[in-house]
């Protein structure tokens, strides 16, 4: 039987505010447990929340970036449930009237297909603390440092029909929140978390199937795996004549399986109601204008500019703008004067290969954009060839100095003196008489052989263009 998959994502994006959404405690990651949980975060009796303006501004920034309706009036509600890392016994969230309404975003999958994904809403809420189960034998340990960290929950429409699309969407949102400076995007630290609602239905069926909500996914790779696992699981159930149960399932990356979360299984009745400690949030036109004016260039705008102004092709522009840090690096190179197309090739080629190999983000790259531009510029001005440049880059990576320093100290400067190159060529022609004859007899493929010999003799320093030209002259 043919099935089709329907996926919607709920992305929890921690906002990069200095202080928490409802208290003045720090949001810094990695502090001593509970040292950043103040009276409000602990839910002491009598404490009250006061809303952080920056959290609202950041949410609106996101809304504007996805062309969504920003609600001029939004309401904070209480979502009531008991859990030890939820200090007040309720989470302050937005239920009926979120700050951001409907919007959409365009994704491009690996096969280059573009698709619009609807965004249902994005709302502000507070994060919970952390429960640590493996620290004590008979106890769960509670750290409330994270409690009260602002979250923007971005809810998509069920518009994705494959794990790949879901990943493309998640990556797109991931890039966007970093672009607009509202989230650091660190998935390891939990700053960006995805829950996936997955269901399947018979191809062509109108009604959605019963969905399972997958939680605890902390990388794009796991997102893809978890969804595919879940789709398979649901197919097996349906094909055996069973029915899928609506439930929350935890993804276990170690065992590569999803399992039912029984503890959260009981019929949850969250009893949402407007939080009487908070008043309706009103966003006036002035604030909206101000946020709009301060909105940075968005990835789609940047991509268009890279194509239009820099003459990059669509694919390169897409890759370079898919992560803000990469785009920033690339643009920093251009600022120093490096050629755009050559820089694009080198960033997407050598640089990204070595970063991948060493599993380093571009932010942690030991070669600065300025230094890397210095290398690319030596290629442009024919100081070194592309081939030599690769070696210079390796030396730069090892910290041996700038491109110029390495070129100087190793004497890698390209030979551009044609009489010197001519001398080498003459010698090679003299030493390879049979090949010369074959060439002249019509085996023009041998030109490569002669080029190779010249490059070898000059230790790669001869300008390849010049070598080709001179060889053509001498051998004709």
């Amino acid at each position, binding site marked *: 039987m043919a099935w089709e998959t329907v996926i919607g994502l709920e992305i929890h994006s921690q906002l990069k505010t200095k202080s928490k959404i409802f208290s003045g405690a720090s949001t810094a990651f990695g502090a001593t447990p509970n040292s950043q949980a103040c009276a409000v975060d602990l839910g*002491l*009796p009598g404490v009250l929340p006061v809303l952080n303006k920056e959290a609202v501004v950041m949410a609106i920034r996101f809304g504007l970036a996805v062309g969504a309706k920003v609600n001029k009036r939004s309401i904070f509600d209480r979502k009531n449930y008991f859990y030890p890392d939820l200090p007040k016994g309720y989470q302050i969230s937005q239920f009926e009237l979120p700050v951001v309404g409907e919007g959409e975003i365009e994704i491009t999958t690996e096969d280059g297909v573009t698709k619009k994904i609807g965004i249902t809403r994005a709302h502000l809420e507070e994060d919970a603390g952390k429960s640590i189960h493996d620290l004590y034998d008979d106890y769960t340990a509670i750290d409330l440092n994270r409690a009260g960290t602002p979250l923007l929950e971005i809810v998509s429409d069920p518009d994705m029909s494959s794990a790949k699309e879901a990943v493309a969407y998640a990556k797109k949102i991931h890039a966007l929140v970093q672009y607009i400076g509202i989230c650091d995007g660190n998935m390891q630290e939990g700053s960006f978390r995805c829950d996936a609602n997955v269901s399947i239905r018979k191809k062509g069926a109108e009604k959605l199937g019963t969905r399972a909500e997958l939680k605890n996914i902390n990388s794009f790779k796991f997102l893809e795996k978890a969804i595919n696992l879940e789709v398979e699981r649901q197919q097996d159930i349906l094909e055996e004549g069973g029915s899928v149960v609506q439930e929350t399932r935890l993804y276990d990356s170690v065992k590569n399986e999803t399992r039912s979360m029984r503890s959260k299984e009981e019929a949850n009745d969250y009893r949402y109601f407007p939080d009487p400690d908070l008043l309706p949030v009103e966003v006036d036109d002035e604030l909206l204008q101000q946020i709009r004016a301060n909105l940075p260039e968005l990835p789609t705008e940047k991509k268009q500019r890279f194509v239009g102004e820099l003459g990059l092709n669509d694919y390169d522009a897409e890759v370079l703008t898919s992560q803000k840090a990469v785009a920033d690096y690339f643009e920093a190179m251009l600022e120093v004067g490096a050629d755009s197309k050559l820089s694009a090739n080198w960033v997407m080629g050598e640089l990204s290969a070595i970063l991948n190999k060493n599993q380093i983000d571009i932010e942690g790259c030991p070669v600065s954009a300025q230094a890397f531009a210095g290398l690319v510029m030596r290629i442009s001005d024919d100081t070194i060839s592309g081939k030599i440049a690769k070696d210079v880059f390796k030396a730069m990576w090892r910290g041996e100095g700038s491109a110029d320093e390495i070129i100087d100290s190793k004497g890698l400067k390209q030979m551009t003196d044609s009489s010197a190159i001519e001398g080498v060529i003459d010698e090679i022609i003299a030493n390879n008489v049979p090949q010369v004859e074959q060439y002249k007899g019509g085996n023009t493929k041998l030109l490569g052989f002669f080029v190779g010999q010249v490059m070898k003799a000059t230790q790669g320093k001869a300008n390849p263009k010049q070598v080709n030209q001179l060889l053509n002259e001498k051998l004709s």
Partner: protein
Amino acid sequence: MLHKLTVTELSKGLKNKEFSSVELTKHFLDRINQSDLNAFITVTDDLALNQAKAADAKIANGSAGILTGIPYAHKDIFCTTGVKTSAGSKILDPFISPYDATVSHKLNSADTVMLGKANMDELAMGSSNEKSYYGPVKNPWDKNKVPGGSSGGSAAAVAGRLSPFATGTDTGGSIRQPASLCGITGIKPTYGRVSRYGMIAYASSLDQAGPLTQTAEDAALVMNVMAGFDDKDSTSVDRAVPDYTKNLENSIEGLKIGLPKEFFSEGLDSGVAETVMAAVKEFESMGASVQEVSLPNSAHAIPTYYIVAPCECSSNLSRLDGVRYGYRCEDPKDLEDLYLRSRSEGFGPEVKRRIMIGAYALSAGYYDAYYLKAQKVRHLISEDFKKAFQDVDVIMGPVSPTTAFDLGSFTDSVSMYLADIYTLSLNLAGLPGMSIPAGFSNNMPVGLQLIGNYWSEELLLNAAHQFQGQTDWHAQMPEGV
């Protein structure tokens, strides 16, 4: 006879060095320790004497304010650093607050002397003070009767002259009703006037703090300290605080008084009705005019309040879970057991009933019929007042349908709820209200309720002060005081 003096008189005496704050404080501590009213949950002798010494130093060096060195009883609902803050509940019996409520902070900054934490109905739920984990408070006028609630300890302390003034909170009448039943003055300000930060929440959209005193003049003095904007409370209003003592002497000639016909119908004790009407006559004799007004939805205040308040409290009290502070049951076998037993052993029956009513009224399938419906009716109730205040300056009526009833006389929740009929509606609307001594019925005090428009505390205090200039009900004391 220091304990019989008003705050105003004590302030003068301290300033003129007729007595010291330490003397005053010791005198009240002695009275508290000899009292059998059970008005206090905690008596803070050492802290009080230290504060009194500090106050005396300020008086000596001339830097004293009006309330410097004046002792008071603090309702146990306000967090006080280093002092048990139980809100009358077992679940907070072990809770030594690590921080100060804004009201506590303001009173400290005014150099007042905290004698102790006043008894109250558990978590402010009750109208008789019989629901305290620490036992019932007795009415100083008749120790077989209740003092009212939930600020029963506060009212009894002032009426019994165990404290010159007390703090209270009023969610559905918890300042006005005990003030009425104990024959003292109490004011519940406009919602948003006094910070709720550090005041253990019962129903957040209804709770408001205010003073209980002998006189309106004293209430004005304490309001000057308690009122004001607080950036820690989102529902606090950034609005200048007037000097509440400034207009106390204004004439009330021409004051337009409205009497809601719904407040004088069946259920009102005839003795209370007569006493209230006599007080209204007194206002007329002072040049006020009286007319009938209508609050047609006021009867709906009971079901509305008893949905809204339980909904909010069911959520507000979820934090009392035995995890981070407060009572935890012994040897919980798992998390579920910890929650269930800590909360079931920690809360009293009335609190549990309200939590369950609230949880039900918010639950899926019932939210619209209960919570949402109640909030709509609340709007109607508030509109009634808006209309009435187009014609009158102050609305007057009874506070409670009867005088103080016997301890133990109410066995079910509902009949107790019905007695809140005259006080609930203004909390729902957020309006200010006062109770002032208006006379006696069957030898028990009767309070007159004054309801004002938003932010009209000055006018209420002015009218009350003028009334107290013409009458001496507020100066009456229980026998043996």
